């Protein structure tokens, strides 16, 4: 046994294979307590990471993570699993770089192979203005010691031979922002790794437990909710839980949960769609993104191409996907790689993204005491999961907003201090 419970290793695989003995559960289905020190709403990557770091870094283990469904059933399991830190603003770069660092050591830290593949991340530029934005990002990145640079079409071709770099196309590849440490991770494994570790440290993972209301006192609004008040607990489909700290770690439902505390958010919810092809022999070595063409693509170790795009233009909570997404996606992918038209798209799905006006999250304390948010992640939630958990845990445990998230305060909209990430965000995966 280790601090994460049963230790996985090649030796254990061997022993279980020989004895055909059962593997222990990765996490339990605990009985709910009536009160916790901290209640985290949302059993996805952010909620689980926050719980884990509360327990691991700050010794706060009397924590419940509640989820209306199963672990990682929302955005955590629906994203395209890309990690990178080549953002545009210094705030963004510092934050995501810390996240990438946590991803780098995660397999060892959590004793679960999350299959991080730092295969290199290419953001293609098809126009002068896109190239200028790439240069801007590269210059900010380099200044902050991020491995990031603008490369020409020949180098793009060398790194990813299946890309068409000829100049007579509608969207010629003029260059690319190249970020060698960027790559992909097995997203579900990240969720399971945090869940398993948090569970072992004593955190209660309460699945199929839906939060129906957040109970407040002393606030300006009805039922004591709203600014000036404080949180006393949550009402769930499996009974009431009292807690002085309630953390909203949801995506797709952040507005609805936050309204329960009387805290409106600068969020609109849009679906982000993704799709995967049938497997084929591996030929695509890097993660390729094109902002102008609204597409990103990588190939899994199983040989499937995984595609994503920008969020749907019409806000909705529907996650059943659209045909036009697959049509545009295929068209754009074939502009980049005309040779793969005979690959078949096998499955499409979508997840919900909470979009903020400046494409940056809303994190930390709110006007309701004890109610904290870690929301508004737009399309960046997966990349940020580890650092969001770490900084939220620090903020909860110390009562002071962690330095890395100071720019992401809820007040910035009314104060007029938006973060400048939007410029690079059209499709910034």
């Amino acid at each position, binding site marked *: 046994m280790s601090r994460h419970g049963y230790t996985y290793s*090649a030796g*254990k695989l061997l022993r279980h294979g020989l004895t055909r003995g059962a593997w222990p559960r990765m996490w339990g289905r605990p009985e709910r307590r009536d009160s916790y020190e901290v209640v985290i709403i949302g059993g996805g990557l952010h909620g689980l990471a926050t719980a884990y770091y509360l327990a691991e870094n700050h010794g706060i283990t009397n924590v419940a993570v509640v989820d209306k469904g199963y672990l990682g059933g929302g955005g955590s399991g629906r994203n395209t699993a890309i990690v990178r830190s080549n953002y545009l603003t210094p705030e963004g770069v510092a934050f995501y770089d810390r996240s990438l660092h946590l991803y780098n050591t995660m397999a060892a830290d959590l004793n*679960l192979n999350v299959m991080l593949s730092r295969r290199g991340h290419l953001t293609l530029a098809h126009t002068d203005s896109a190239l200028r934005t790439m240069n801007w990002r590269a210059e900010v990145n380099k200044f902050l010691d991020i491995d990031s640079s603008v490369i020409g079409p020949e180098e793009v071709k060398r790194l990813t*031979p299946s890309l068409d770099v000829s100049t007579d196309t509608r969207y010629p590849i003029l260059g690319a922002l190249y970020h060698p440490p960027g790559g992909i991770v097995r997203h579900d494994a990240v969720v399971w790794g945090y869940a398993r570790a948090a569970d072992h440290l004593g955190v209660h993972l309460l699945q199929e437990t839906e939060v129906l209301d957040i109970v407040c006192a002393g606030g300006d609004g009805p039922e004591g909710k709203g600014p000036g008040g404080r949180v006393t607990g949550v009402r769930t489909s499996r009974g009431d839980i009292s807690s002085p700290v309630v953390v909203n770690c949801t995506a797709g439902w952040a507005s609805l949960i936050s309204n329960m505390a009387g805290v409106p958010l600068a969020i609109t919810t849009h679906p982000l769609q993704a799709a995967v092809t049938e497997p084929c022999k591996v030929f695509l070595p890097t993660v390729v993104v094109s902002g102008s063409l609204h597409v990103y693509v990588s190939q899994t170790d199983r040989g499937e191409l995984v595609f994503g795009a920008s969020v749907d233009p019409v806000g909705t909570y529907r996650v*059943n996907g659209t045909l036009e997404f697959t049509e545009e996606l295929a068209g754009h992918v074939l502009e980049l790689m005309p040779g793969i038209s005979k690959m078949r798209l096998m499955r499409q799905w979508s997840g919900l993204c909470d979009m903020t006006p400046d494409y940056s999250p809303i994190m930390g304390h709110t006007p309701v005491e004890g109610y904290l948010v870690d929301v508004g992640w737009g399309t960046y939630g997966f990349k940020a999961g580890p650092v969001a958990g770490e900084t939220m845990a620090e903020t909860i445990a110390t009562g002071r907003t962690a330095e890395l998230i100071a720019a992401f305060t809820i007040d910035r909209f009314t104060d007029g201090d938006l973060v400048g990430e939007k410029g690079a965000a059209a499709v910034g995966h």
Partner: protein
Amino acid sequence: MSIHRLPIRSGELIDRSTNLSFTWNGRTFSGHEGDTIASALAAAGVEVFSRGMKYHRRRGILTANHWDPNLAVQVGDEPNVRAGSRRLVDGMEVTAQNVWPSLRWDLGTANRLVGRFLSAGFYYKTFMRPQFLWHNLYQRVLRKFAPGGRVHWKTGVHGEYDKRYAHPDVLVAGGGPAGMAAALSAAEAGASVMLVEQEPELGGHLRWGGPGDLAVLADLSRAVHSNPGIEVLCDSIVTGRYDHNWVAVVQRSHPVAPERLIKARVGSLIVAPGLVERPYVFAGNDLPGVMLAGAVRRLVNLWAVKPGSRAVVLSANSEGDAAVADLESAGVEVVAVLDARAGEDVVGARGRGRVSSVQTGDGRTLRADLLVTATGWTAPTSLLNMAGDRPLYDRTAARYFPQSLPDNVLATGGIAGDGSTTELTAHGRETGSLAAQRALRLRHARRTQTPRSLPPESDPPDEIADNRIPLRRSPHPERYRSTTHGLVDFSEDVSSKDLIQAAGEGFDSIELMKRYTTVTMGPGQGKLETVNAAAVLAESRAVEMADIGTTVWRPPFSPVSLGALAGRIFEPVRRSALQGWHEANGATNLLAGQWVRPDHYGSPMTEASNVRENVGIIDVTPLGKLDLRGPDVANLLDLVYVNRWQKLEVGRVRYGAMVAEDGVVSDDGVTGRLADNHYLMTTTSSGAGAVWEMLEDWLQTYRPDWEVHVTPVTGGLTSINVAGPRSRELLGRLVEDLDLSADAFPYFSVRKGIVSGVEDCIIWRIGFTGELSYEVHVPSGHALHVWESLLANGSDLGVAPFGVEAQRVLRLEKGHYIVGQDTDGLSKAPTAGLGGLVKLDKADTIGLPELRAAFERTDLPVLVGLQPDEPTVVPDEACQIVAAEGNEILGRVTSSRMSPTLKRSICLAQVDPSLAPAGTSVTIQLVDGRRVSATVQEHHAHVDPEGVRQRV
């Protein structure tokens, strides 16, 4: 060579008079028209078609149709072709996939030796340290084992794909008896019908039935094909149903396109896909020679292929019983029929490379080379799931049934229940009538609401209730897994044992189990596997099937090629009336949004110098142009621009900048007043569309009382800028009755006139380049004439065309900022230096409160002119301005060029306000990491800041 081909069968699809030659792994084979790849190979005695994904065990025919997980092959450059349904074509080159070096000798079989260690999710539990081994070794090895065929990315092309739209009243998915009957009755009720069948011919399961079935099939098929109201699409698949009955059909039978995507807005969708037979889980169930009853029936009856010589049949239903009869009629010795309804069972199949013996539940071992199972059905409810249904498990019938459907989606046939052919067609007919009735009501409403349509002559058809008599649900034993463990997912090599292990580790909901074990994640997307997986999970949790639920079936119903989805790629491009001239005269093009335009004609620096010294002409047609008419135009301009417009006189032009409601600079341009109630507004090229829509928004929703008509005229007026000290002289040679002198036609004014004989030209005098210049807007049908006249009449003046790059140099020398380049998504009016322009005391302006707030701030970045101290150093655009000491970014270079006029580098830059005062020395970090110093200038303009040249 067709050693297993049977004598003629009455329902066979093959045309024995034809002979198609093809290769399989390099060896030549032959088959007949009507054969599938698999049937032709099976007739020739081929038993192994592929290898399992993980353990590389040999795989043979399992279902002999589209869903067969073992029959994915490579055909030429097309990977993952379904050999169970793809019809044979002469000359096909077919190879096995996922084998190395060959199908027969596959080194991957070594994995079998370590199979017991490769349990579900094994890869999550090892390779954690050391990290470098994971990156450099393990992962590369794993990637080598990726399954699937080869994509020919080097040589492949995006071929002749197209799409089309359709608007049928009724679309029927599935051309079996119920589907055909539904299509007929819908058409008889007056609906337009599209009938889509996955196979190349109609009939569904009737095709492999007895004489009675074949007779019904012939009658229905004839009636369907001869009905003009029915469009029949065979070899086509309904791949998705989306909101508001938007339905995707992939047509493979098109005479021109290899695959055509049809996008149909459907009144009523009838879902009649029949049922998918599910495999049985037991030890050895993936051995070649283990087949489903349906596979045997198809092989024997459709393709006259003898599937084995000694058979054991496990039958839980009539399909299994019928398979016994078919086998006997084909001369196969049926060694034993095990009746699953009576509790008989199979616990294992053994053999090397093919079944040689079968172990029964009562302990017997039977010698056989064929084991046929008929253990029940999966309802392929994908399209219903996509319509919001959550099918419910019925224990008695041992399968799922639709629960509740929206009015515009109806189910019939096997997916809805059981019945004789007569009962199925009767249900189909009733479903067709109901669907037609509902669709025709919708069509009536659509005609009423659509102004261009023929107004309906009659009242809408009456609403009729759904009085269909439901199909019955025949009892069927719940048989999913034997007492032994076997494969649940054949494409993913996931066994029932893996699933039970996963549940024990906490992955005990179907979605978590799916993600952990990858069950149902393969190309079949769970058609064969989902129900068995749920059954194993129910078993491991000791709960009812109904409590498990199933994974949500997502689109597409069957995989679709990227080529079909992309179709013809439409990427509109815009060309000015002069673009042909530019290209014929050596222009290097630039793509700017949708526009194609000349970047330069060879030497941008020479072009720029010529403008400063002589005269140049540039095509600036992409500039957005809006014709504004009406008494309230000035009010509108006051609202949308930050400056004031009420006092602009007729004949005058003014610069205006726009901000959005959040105060961020959004667009700019000049607007001229042509007559009392007539203005011409220009916008940036990229902002033209957005500004037009924005004006309409304010006029329609905010000030509907204002009388303004907005007409976009961007392409109708070709815009030619004539710039340079000799521009007046040049233009003077071409205009009639127009005095170009400084007094008569001062800076920032506009005139209408005739240029080179072309009437209705609009000329305004502005100075983006910083030189004396005239922008001439010419009706586009005559623009080339004017352009050529300018060149022809100015050779003595040194006239030459210049492109976008020279213009960028010139405007930077002059210090004009470009919205979106020198400003960004956070730049407010003070940053752009609009302090002198903005009027905060207007009644209303877009973004007024933010404008006021912005001018009270002292911390906003400032746009400044900047010159590197070393004049030959041109910092790249986007280079960061950093603190000389410490680690702080204080700004960035937004524009930079070498100035041909000053012979030195010049920049615009956004800097922290502390660096904004003229004379401040700043530090620029170059792309290569070097740092250089630069000095902030007093003006944005580097050349002629007083504006003398443009005012002459």
